[in-house]
């Protein structure tokens, strides 16, 4: 008895949606095993992770707060992944957004005006776009792999932030701690649910989902992105400029990541610190995939992954569990999802491989950028 994969004549649409659910089930099972290895009661741990955070209105608000950057970035990255552009430096673009937007907040520290926040938002977006423009330029002009350049720039961005908060932007009254001044009220995001920390960024995240959905399903740009991603040659023959596409998706991803970064520092954090994100820019990659590279999917995936962050914190407090468990959960979810996605293109056949290959056909060819 051998398990073999048989290529489906066409991709299974239902499996596109079922696969994340199967992956989630497997992730939970693997999580139970992990907790047992750690010597923790699995039911207690799973409760602390996935249920307890949602038992209070505080928890629900926090869910929105944590989902905001994930959705903003994830929804933009999913466009890029569809176009075959692998921007994995969103974390750096987020950091630059925080630096540029936060810089405005510090610069206009004494200005009490309605216009401070919009200006910060604009500069946050521009900062992220600028950081993403570098890999875009290097990719289109010099053919340099955007995976590696965007990632290297993440390290540079983190060091830049560290340089600024250790040096020129350090709070003069801050006892030499590497922190900026706490932003003034006019540089702080308004809270949209009083009594909680849910801020205006959540509205932007929902708007981004809607906007990207329209872009992808109703505009020619969205159509071009899909074509170039699925069949680059067809796109070229149709006269779509691949370079323009690279610029577009990278600037979009950078801008959204910058926005997310600005929201972090002017919302939940309220100042510039050496570390402003627990890796939202990287986790957004998982969000994009779990969300099936579709805006609505990303919305739900963002909430799910946000819950894993929240659960990690709650399990740390109530059960003294290390925060790293969150990362392990997220990684496992992506692993299982990628494994389950085989069911979209193939079906499982129990039997000898000879019988299977008789009905099977051609290898899939997923072009992957390189070099």
């Amino acid at each position: 008895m051998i398990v073999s994969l048989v290529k489906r004549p066409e991709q299974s649409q239902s499996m596109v949606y079922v696969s994340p659910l199967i992956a989630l089930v497997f992730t939970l099972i693997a999580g139970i095993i992990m907790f047992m290895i750690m010597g923790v009661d699995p039911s207690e741990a799973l409760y602390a992770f996935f249920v307890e955070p949602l038992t209070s209105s505080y928890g629900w608000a926090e869910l929105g707060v944590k989902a905001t950057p994930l959705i903003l970035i994830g929804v933009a990255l999913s466009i890029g992944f569809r176009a075959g552009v692998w921007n994995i430096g969103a974390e750096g673009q987020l950091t630059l957004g925080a630096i540029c937007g936060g810089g405005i907040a510090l610069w206009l520290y004494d200005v009490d005006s309605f216009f401070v926040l919009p200006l910060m938002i604009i500069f946050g977006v521009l900062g992220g776009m600028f950081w993403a423009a570098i890999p875009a330029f290097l990719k289109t002009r010099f053919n340099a792999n955007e995976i590696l350049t965007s990632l290297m720039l993440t390290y540079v961005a983190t060091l830049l932030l560290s340089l600024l908060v250790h040096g020129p932007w350090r709070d003069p009254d801050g006892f030499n701690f590497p922190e900026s001044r706490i932003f003034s009220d006019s540089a702080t995001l308004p809270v949209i649910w009083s009594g909680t920390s849910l801020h205006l960024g959540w509205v932007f995240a929902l708007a981004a989902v809607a906007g990207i959905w329209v872009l992808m399903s109703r505009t020619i740009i969205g159509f071009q992105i899909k074509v170039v991603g699925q069949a680059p040659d067809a796109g070229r023959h149709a006269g779509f400029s691949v370079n323009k596409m690279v610029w577009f998706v990278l600037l979009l991803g950078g801008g959204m990541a910058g926005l997310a970064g600005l929201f972090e520092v002017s919302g939940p954090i309220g100042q510039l610190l050496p570390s402003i994100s627990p890796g939202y820019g990287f986790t957004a990659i998982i969000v994009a995939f779990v969300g099936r590279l579709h805006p609505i999917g990303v919305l739900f995936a963002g909430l799910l992954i946000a819950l894993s962050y929240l659960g990690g914190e709650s399990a740390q407090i109530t059960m003294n569990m290390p925060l790293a468990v969150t990362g392990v959960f997220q990684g496992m979810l992506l692993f299982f999802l990628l494994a389950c996605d085989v069911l979209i293109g193939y079906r499982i056949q129990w039997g000898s491989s000879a019988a299977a290959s008789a009905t099977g056909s051609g290898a899939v060819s997923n072009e992957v950028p390189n070099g």
Partner: protein
Amino acid sequence: MGEVLIAAVLTIITAATPLVYASIGEMISEKAGVLNLGVEGMMLMGAVCGFAAVNATDSSAIGIIVGMLAGSGLSLIFAVLVLGFQATQVATGLALTIFGIGISSLIGQDLVGIAYDGLPKLPIPGLSAIPVAGKLLFNHDILVYGSFVLILVVSWFLRSTRSGLILRAVGDSHDAAHAIGYHVIRIRYMAILFGGAMSGLAGAYLSLSYSPLWIENMSAGRGWIALALVVFATWRPWRVFTGAYLFGGITILQLHAQALGIGVPAQVMSMLPYVATIIVLVLISQDHNKIKLNAPACIGKPFHPTS
């Protein structure tokens, strides 16, 4: 001055050694047509498991072996997903790194703050007494010597052995290799596991020799630099070696800048390796054909045997 220079060269060697391991491993995997972006995760896994093993057994040999096994253990997940489940290599590699960062800090949470003497130096009798050269070349730990041996063996393997030829065939045209009767999947499994083992060794070198302790995320992007080095080297072992040592040279600027009285903030110096990676990538990628001619033709493409 002589002393300073020797110290400088020794720093270059220690900074280059993990890069040599990781990028040679990745190069082999890419030669077989598999792009594994999980190097960073596998390095961290090697680092934490190697360190944990030394801590538990007090044997550096066991530490090295465990580090190697941990790296290839993680790469096995990648191999199964990519080869067995036809998952996209880029996404799976990213997942491997994210998972590796998480699981390594989970494993290492009780190891933070524990100190270790570092791998013992193994001076080669006689040779190590030679002035200057003895210190530079013949007074290292086992992993530095190992990296020299590795580069020799790998370049010989790829150039002069039948197995090396088969490996390259699988990476350049899996359909043709399959048609001739080679086991594409099996060969790719071996290449991925080898790559994982080398990344694990690179990590073990970091936690057992480079800075003998465990810190979360201690590889600090070296896995990614290793990936860039493979492109920089246009998939040739000796160029990988040269590239790794060039990067070692940059690291040294970072470490000795203050000693040399260069008044640049530490963060700016720390940016150097990453900026250099970008510059190097740009320089090498500029020539479209150079990459096209040298890159394994099937890199990143999944293979599903049909007959």
